[in-house]
């Protein structure tokens, strides 16, 4: 399976995604420049983390207008799998591919640390290699990762089973103390209604090597490979 890793000016997890994906048997990854318009030959799209366009104005707000995003929308509308990580999640929300928004962390500080995530739903294109209720240890690193959506939207996400990951404690409880950024309902990752677009604040590419303390990120990428 061939992954396109988008490269915006200011992307800074693009190289990490390439490294992590190319180390997974069955996966290969290559860069796609933000000025390119073709995703031909790719089976999946990764919108990586970073500070696209410096995140001036608002996180992800400028990236949505870049030429490549038009192709990503077409790719997604045609059912292709798209995963947005951190800034990539912000871009997918700004582009309207995912509902809600990501705002400043509750504590106002940037937070970089390992967190526990509870898999809410293994019946999805992005979590089928895990099981429902499984706890994944994956790092976060963001200043604006507080997921916000209106009550109705949250209701719809719940009903449709679109929430795939929630921040939780070691016992798997989605407790407030385990919420690193104030996200509503401890939401760490959601998919779209069709199920082929996924955004998450944690960085699975940083949890694919035992030397980095966790390999739980592989569950996410392997799920995409399983299809």
């Amino acid at each position: 399976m061939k992954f396109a890793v988008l490269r915006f000016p200011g992307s800074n997890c693009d190289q990490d995604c390439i490294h992590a994906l190319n180390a997974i048997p069955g996966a290969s990854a290559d860069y796609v420049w933000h000025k390119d318009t073709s995703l031909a030959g790719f089976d999946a799209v990764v919108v990586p983390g970073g500070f696209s366009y410096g995140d001036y104005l608002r996180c992800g707000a400028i990236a949505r207008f870049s030429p490549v995003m038009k192709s990503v929308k077409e790719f997604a509308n045609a059912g292709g799998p798209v995963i947005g990580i951190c800034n990539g999640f912000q871009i997918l929300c700004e582009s309207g591919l995912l509902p809600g928004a990501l705002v400043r962390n509750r504590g106002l500080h940037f937070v970089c640390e390992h967190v526990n995530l509870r898999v809410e739903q293994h019946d999805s294109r992005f979590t089928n290699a895990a099981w429902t209720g499984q706890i994944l240890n994956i790092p976060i690193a963001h200043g604006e990762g507080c997921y916000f959506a209106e009550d109705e939207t949250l209701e719809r996400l719940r009903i449709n089973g679109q929430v795939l990951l929630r921040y939780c404690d070691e016992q798997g409880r989605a407790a407030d103390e385990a919420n690193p950024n104030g996200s509503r309902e401890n939401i760490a990752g959601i998919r779209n209604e069709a199920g082929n677009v996924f955004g998450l604040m944690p960085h699975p590419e940083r949890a694919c090597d035992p030397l980095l303390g966790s390999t739980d990120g592989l569950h996410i990428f392997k799920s995409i490979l399983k299809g």
Partner: protein
Amino acid sequence: MITPDVIAKHGITPEEYERIREILGRDPNFTELGVFSVMWSEHCSYKNSKLELKKFPTTGPRVLVKAGEENAGVIDIGDGWAIAFKMESHNHPSAVEPFQGAATGVGGIIRDIFTMGARPVFSMNSLRFGDIRGDSAEARTNRRLFAGVVAGISHYGNCIGIPTIGGEVYFDDSYAGNPLVNVFCLGVLRHDQIARGGAVGIGNPVFYVGAETGRDGLAGAAFASRELTEESKEDRPAVQVGDPFREKLLLEACLELLASGCAAGIQDMGAAGLTCSTCETASRGGTGVEIDVNLVPKREAGMTPYEILLSESQERMLVIVNKGEEDKVRAIFEKWDLPYAEVGVVNDDGMMRVREGDSTAVEIPARKLADDAPLYSREAAEKRPPAPLDLAQIPEADCLAALPTLLSHPSIASKRWVWRQYDHMVRLGATVLPGSDAAVFIVREANKILAASTDCNAIYCRQDPREGAKIAVAEAARNIACTGAVPLALTDNLNFGNPHKPENFLQLREAVEGMAEACRKFDTPVTGGNVSLYNESPAGAIDPTPTVGMVGIVEDPKHITTQFFKADGDVIILIGEPGDELGASHYLLAIHGLKAGPPPRLDYDRELAVQNAVRSLIRMELVASAHDCAEGGLAVTLAESCMSGEKNLGACVEIPSGATRADIPLFNESQSRIVISVKPAEAAGVLSFLAERGVPASQVGTVNCGNNLDISTAGKSFSWPLDELGETWGSTISRLMED
């Protein structure tokens, strides 16, 4: 126009002015005077410190580019790979505007690294502030500075995507009003990728690329070379504003440019901006450079040549392009959406010539400007050894209470509040996270594992600068050894007060000589660094702070070792003597309010034996944890080993001591000590290995899964609940900063 008053305002002495007249064969014009003032500032010329810096060892089999030759030294790490690293200060800007001061410090050091052709892979920092405890106006100011500096580093480093993986933060009254912000960056490159900063090739065009030049940061180098006063706030225009996004584009564009082979030379515009980059490239190339300021991209209209040349706007580079390759270069800059312009040409007359259209604004022999700044050996005060410590005058503290007090001292307390704000995991390298003795980082490009540590105990240096500087090097090497790595080389940042005061100059000289001696002993050449003098506030000079940033290499991932205990039942071994030196200790500072007595002695042979032994044991895979014994002595070391892992582990320890008071064995800071833990079955073998090598060691206790740190010594027994120690150690800083 050039009156004695104008000359004095530029910080140029009458003698220096005469020298300028001799170089030019005439009086300088106003712009030229400005150019000389920044190039001959301490920040750019090291005029008060260069004679001392020559004492450092700078060569070695691994040194590919020596200190001072280029923007940063380059060290071989094997298999055709090399690293470039350096540390630099941004103290004065951070005192006036902490967020931007620190942010642009990070930006500047990153540029120094990619200017060498290296991809920056991680950063660290060494920070000093006044006391952040209490409700005084001063404490509030110190908290504001601390919060601002951390936020500035976090902002710049996180955005550009270079992980900040470690460092140190100390709090002491001597830094009130004059914080220290020393930033470190390391990059990786192939041997054949080393880029040079010379203007070579007569007729080659000179390109300017990066942010437009504005009026920000005017003459910042000169500002950094003065004492901070009440009026320094008015110097706020001398502080630059950073744009990490711009720098990220500049970084990618420059690395692409250097890989293309189209560049003959490259130089960043840091201190003294366009002035420094033009005359230094010409001087290195043995050529002349002529530029036209009318062609320079500018942020605002009406800027004079003086302002354009002295601006320290950030995120700018000067590139000497191989003639004929201009179009390829333009295409790269356009790909990355960067402003650029062809601003001049390399010629053979040795002059730095600046035109403004048809008129000549500056014409100065480049080499004399760049390399012939006056050098001074300032008057040094007479050396006075520190008075011996009279223990009879120091009552034994309540040791049960003293340990939590030490652990809650902001200098010793956990810095999690700080490093949680830094993205330390990007680039997939941080295999040992911040909070252990040294950071350990996998450089993916080169498939190498590096360890890095910054160190300086300024109380030691205050009491005895020579011994303190030696210990800074030894401790850095010890921290590196504890991770399983071999030290390679180091960079230094020498922070001192006004060198015109004899007692300050003595500190500088003593520290340099001590550091130089230690570098020879540990076989770690100095790859470059930075000198920051004039660190004074109205209350006086800072404690001398010669900070060391050392890098080592781990040969096998199996050797990577951390400081915290691993398993119930493991045996705790103290390598080195229990020690008895309380002088200059944090115990005296935190409990008795004293900076007194001589710092502990450093015995090189002992130190090397201890470090080598620990490294050997680690390589034999016998060591579960290794932790250097430093501030707060053995008690703090043991507490940290219990508490700094994912979950607390208890320990039961007996420290052998002939002392009649417990504070000596618990809190003394004698050197050359490392606490390791090993599997019970290995303990006897480890002890006999150490004995065979003549390294003193003793089995002092065991790790347990209880919730206490129990220590008995000097006929007394203590038991500290780890929950309580952990709470005070772990949350002190966040409580001070968030409440």
